[in-house]
């Protein structure tokens, strides 16, 4: 009995630091933000209130940017997840002895840093960038293509390249857990390679696919640097407007309401994606 109590105490003690970090650095600020989102601002100072005015304003004025953010984040998350699955599958199925090396090489790109990647893409996509120089040099176009940079396409390219390693990790982990015996069994039963993938591999990867999608979606939905640095005149995302409330407009309550509305939208999209994956990739 004493041993069990000691073990319980030890478990609590071991979980304590993690729980404290999560509680104090994430949950507590989140609850505080939720409370503040019902406040109002007067002369740049927060006045405690219990009004829904901020949420009404968000729905009236920012429905468009929220929808745009959700759409572009979903597109980026979907593209990244599919690409990540292809890469992870290649490493798992064809990597052989080089599997660990290929995975390491993929993760190595994380060391480049976020801003460095953005500026690298600006160099690649700009008027005098690698792509435009090549196209003009080969005589394929007369003038550099301006639309490569400062456009939604540029935002998608930059974020997909940035998020890819994050998406590969959970998928590779899931693929490693797939029992080779089940694949052999599927083959023995006459399944084509596509059938094996569809019926024996993908159903086992649904949680990892959903995790990769959620990770990419959330990071994109909260981003405000990429759209600002490589986006065009029509690529402002919610992150930009939220940042503006906390900085320029000094309206923390409205910024908090915008944050929660975006968060709820994100949860809905991720929930829908999860349900969709479970439905379409269920084991037959």
């Amino acid at each position, binding site marked *: 009995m004493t041993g069990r109590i000691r*073990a319980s105490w*030890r478990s609590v*003690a*071991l979980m304590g*630091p993690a729980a404290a970090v999560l509680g104090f650095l994430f949950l507590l600020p989140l609850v505080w933000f939720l409370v503040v989102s019902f406040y109002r601002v007067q*002369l*740049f*100072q927060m006045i405690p209130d219990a009004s829904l005015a901020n949420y009404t304003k968000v729905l009236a*004025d920012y429905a*468009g*940017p929220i929808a745009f953010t959700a759409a572009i984040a979903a597109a980026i998350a979907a593209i990244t997840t599919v690409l990540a699955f292809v890469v992870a599958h290649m490493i798992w199925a064809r990597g052989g002895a080089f599997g660990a090396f290929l995975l390491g090489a993929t993760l190595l790109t994380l060391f480049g840093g976020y801003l460095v990647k953005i500026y690298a893409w600006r160099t690649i996509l*700009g*008027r*005098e960038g690698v792509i435009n120089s090549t196209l003009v040099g080969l005589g394929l176009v007369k003038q550099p293509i*301006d639309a490569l*940079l*400062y456009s939604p396409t540029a935002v998608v390219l930059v974020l997909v390249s940035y998020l890819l390693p994050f998406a590969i990790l959970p998928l590779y982990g899931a693929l490693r857990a797939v029992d080779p015996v089940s694949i052999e069994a599927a083959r023995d039963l006459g399944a084509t390679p596509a059938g094996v993938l569809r019926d024996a591999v993908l159903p086992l990867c649904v949680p990892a696919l959903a995790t990769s999608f959620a990770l990419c979606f959330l990071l994109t939905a909260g981003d405000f640097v990429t759209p*600002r*640095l490589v*986006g*065009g*005149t029509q690529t*402002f995302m919610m992150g*930009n*407007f939220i940042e*503006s409330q*906390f*900085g*320029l*407009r*000094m*309206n923390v309550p409205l910024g908090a309401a915008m944050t929660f509305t975006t968060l709820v939208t994100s949860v809905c999209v991720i929930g829908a994606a999860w349900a969709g994956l479970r439905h379409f990739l269920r084991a037959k």
Partner: protein
Amino acid sequence: MTNRNTGPNTASPASALRLSRRFFMAGAGGVAALAGFGLKPALAGQGQVAFLGWEGYDLAFKADDILKKAGASFQPTYISTIEDIITKLRSGGMGSIDLTTLIYQYVGFSASSGILDPIDESLVPNLAGMHPRFKSLDQFLRIDGKLYGIPFTFSSIPLMYNPAKVARPTSWKDMLKPEHKGRVVGFPDAMSMIVTWSKVANEGIADPSRMTREQLDKTIELMVALKANSRAVPSSMGEISDMFGRGEIDMAMGWEPMVKWVQDKGVELAIASPSEGTFAYFDTVNIAKDAPNRELDHALINWGLSAATQKTFSEANVLGIVNAEAMGKVTDPVVSKIFHFDDIDAYFADKFLPGMFPLEPEGDLVTWDEVLQAFENYQRA
């Protein structure tokens, strides 16, 4: 299938991470020490002069000799928008921050809302060296007779262009011409955009900060037209100069130092004088409420206003200065020419200095918050 890990504490997963009481207490002690010291705001307290302002502005107030004599260090924190100063002071910065550099328009309401302390003019004798033209700024900087900001630099948001690519523009409206589509950009800052384009949209408006709703709507309409003609919405002034340097744009709302920044990239920029005028502004130095080193702060401000410091500051940052004697000492011909240090009135001849928008409803005038809301509408458009 052999378990190569044969250490004494690895018999089961549960025992892999043992937590002795001594280890736990040591860890807890470490966390407490971190919380007590490591996480303490680095800028707090006497002996550390905390400066909160634009990068480069610290050069004007980092007087090594004075700091050494006082046994103090200088801790600069750079801002990305002016509003960062107000946000940081409001969110626990008061009592640990010493010097800030607010734009002249923000000094009045910042002082009224209690985030600044008045400056003791008797401790700043170099105020006497200020060019007499700038005394009129007092209307923005004094509340109940007390001074809350001292201007130390000025510049503007001029219409800049690449003369090798386009003819000299004569109006801001030239940026809207179809032949310049995709070859122009506006400015990232709300105040600069609004006051500049209000002059274009509302001919004859005396002070853009006293605008009606209708005038603001016309201003935003024009800004949206500019956006539609633009290459991008720039994220910073550095990006505008990069765009000039890469040959992506020919015309932009710029900032005087860009002339030098772009020169380094082999592009010669010129500054136009649009008929509607150019927004000029002063940045001021302020003492934050409950600044921990008040006396030392005054000494640093006084040093920053000296002729020698002002000359160095102007040449290093390519910015205007307020000390009359220093203006004559600036030897960099590019800087002298841009700011007309030999005839300061000539510099301000085509400039306008708007006041601050009302913070609370005032007749049919739009408030600052309505202006910022309108700026967001422009961003969303």
